[in-house]
């Protein structure tokens, strides 16, 4: 059974860590090129929307989502926004502390 294969269970976690590591490096490149954090985060969100929309249209039809699950997912987006804001704010404050 495919779900018993370790890569089926571990692959997404490894992929997540790898892609976020790539995002970290690319984020630094973007900031070095003069962009600011809010612009990067906003533009990144639109790219993600386009990608996921294309996948939902071209890929297999997803199972319908219940209204509570929809609202919870929307709430997860709020948490994600807080995560990104807190992270970059920490970068900014600690960077200033080390220089000031």
């Amino acid at each position, binding site marked *: 059974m495919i779900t018993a294969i370790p890569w089926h269970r571990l692959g997404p976690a490894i992929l997540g860590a790898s892609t976020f590591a790539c995002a970290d490096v690319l984020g630094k490149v973007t900031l070095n*090129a003069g962009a600011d954090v809010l612009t990067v985060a906003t533009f990144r969100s639109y790219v993600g929307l386009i990608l996921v929309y294309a996948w939902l249209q071209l890929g297999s039809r997803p199972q319908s989502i219940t209204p509570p699950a929809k609202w919870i997912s929307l709430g997860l987006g709020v948490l994600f926004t807080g995560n990104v804001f807190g992270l970059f704010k920490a970068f900014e404050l600690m960077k200033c502390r080390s220089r000031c």
Partner: protein
Amino acid sequence: MTPRGIAAALAAFAGLAMMIGAHPAGLAALGIMAAIGAAICRVAMLLITRSALAGTDPRLITWYSLVSSTILFTAFALATWNWQPPAGALGWFALVGLGVTTTVGILAVYVSTVRIGPFRTALFMNLEPPLTAIGSAIFLGEVLNALQMQRWGDHAGRSGGVPDAAVRTPTGRRA
């Protein structure tokens, strides 16, 4: 959570701190609070996904979460009337790549949380700092000293030790 898993998490965190040369005296209190806030948000995302969205298609979770976060970021940008894009083709290439990799990462985390749970997923996310260190060394020219390299190896090793814990069934037997 097993004692082994908890020990692995603590060791990975300690290795990470030593790898980046963290020192309490060099940290701003507000920065620490912001980082803790960010971590709390991330933990909440993992726990809520596992507990409330176990049978939901991760693609739809990603879609709706991106919708709300995009609305918020756009609102902040409009409220502050802020738009500062990167200069040059390399900057724009990196920005688009950032969007692609972040989206894939978010989706992968949701899928992983459903498959192996939030704790094991968070343990695997400890692979992110060592991989970032490698990428930074290759593409940004950031160099790690000998002590950091050693700690990086320890950190990656402890994170890599997670697979054994991750594939075990709840009874402790290997899947």
